[in-house]
């Protein structure tokens, strides 16, 4: 199945990011295709390289970046990002900033758009 994932919540504060990550790992393992991952609302905070969590904790931004390195398209909403001070310069590698049109394409092309957040 072709899946797209949209994440609404920021890292650490909310389980949405972790749940989405685990969901994607499991889906890929099962052979599903991930059409894209879209960060919206406070979700845009998930991929800033400025985060520096304690060393014995997961590094959420690096984790997403590593997933991006496998070829999965990871998109940060530009409108939501600008509002929150997230710009290209602070992003981890393998993610990109783009518009809501990308979410639209994911919603159209994916068999299921799975949203994580409140």
């Amino acid at each position, binding site marked *: 199945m072709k899946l797209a994932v949209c994440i*609404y919540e920021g890292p650490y504060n909310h389980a949405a990011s972790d749940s989405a990550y685990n969901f994607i790992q499991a889906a890929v393992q099962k052979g599903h295709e991930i059409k894209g991952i879209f960060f*919206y*609302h406070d979700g845009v905070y998930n991929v800033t390289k400025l985060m520096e969590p304690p060393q014995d904790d997961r590094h959420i931004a690096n984790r997403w970046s590593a997933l991006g390195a496998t070829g999965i398209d990871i998109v940060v909403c530009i*409108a939501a990002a600008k509002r929150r001070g997230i710009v290209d310069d602070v992003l981890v590698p393998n993610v990109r900033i783009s518009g809501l*049109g990308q979410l639209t394409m994911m*919603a*159209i092309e994916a068999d*299921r*758009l799975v949203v994580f957040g*409140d």
Partner: protein
Amino acid sequence: MAEDIKKIMFTVRKPPHGTIYVYEGLEVKLIMAAYDADISVVFMDDGVFAVKKGQDTKALGIKGFEATYGALVDYEITKVFVDRQSMEERGMTEEDLLVIGEDEDTEEPIKPQVVDSDEIAAMMAEQHNILAF
């Protein structure tokens, strides 16, 4: 081809103010309306407050967006529904709903359509994807 156009539904279930979900959700609707997709919007639960007329956000110190909801028809978003039960539970009637545009020919004001939960369920079952805000 028309049959290839995907049905995408937005549900608005949160109150309009207090968090940014509904406002940023509105931005998604306006963008998606520009694409080849069959868009519908359903207001339910506390989301019905988003289509209540006479919202005044001045005292909150935030930019309101009632005017944008009042122009949904201009963005060619015409399939706009309100869950009757959610509305009634919150003491709202059809009278309280804001106008979302006007009919091109008759210039009659258009309001969201009040529907029952089972109608919403039937519409949901037809969707390609649903986005909740």
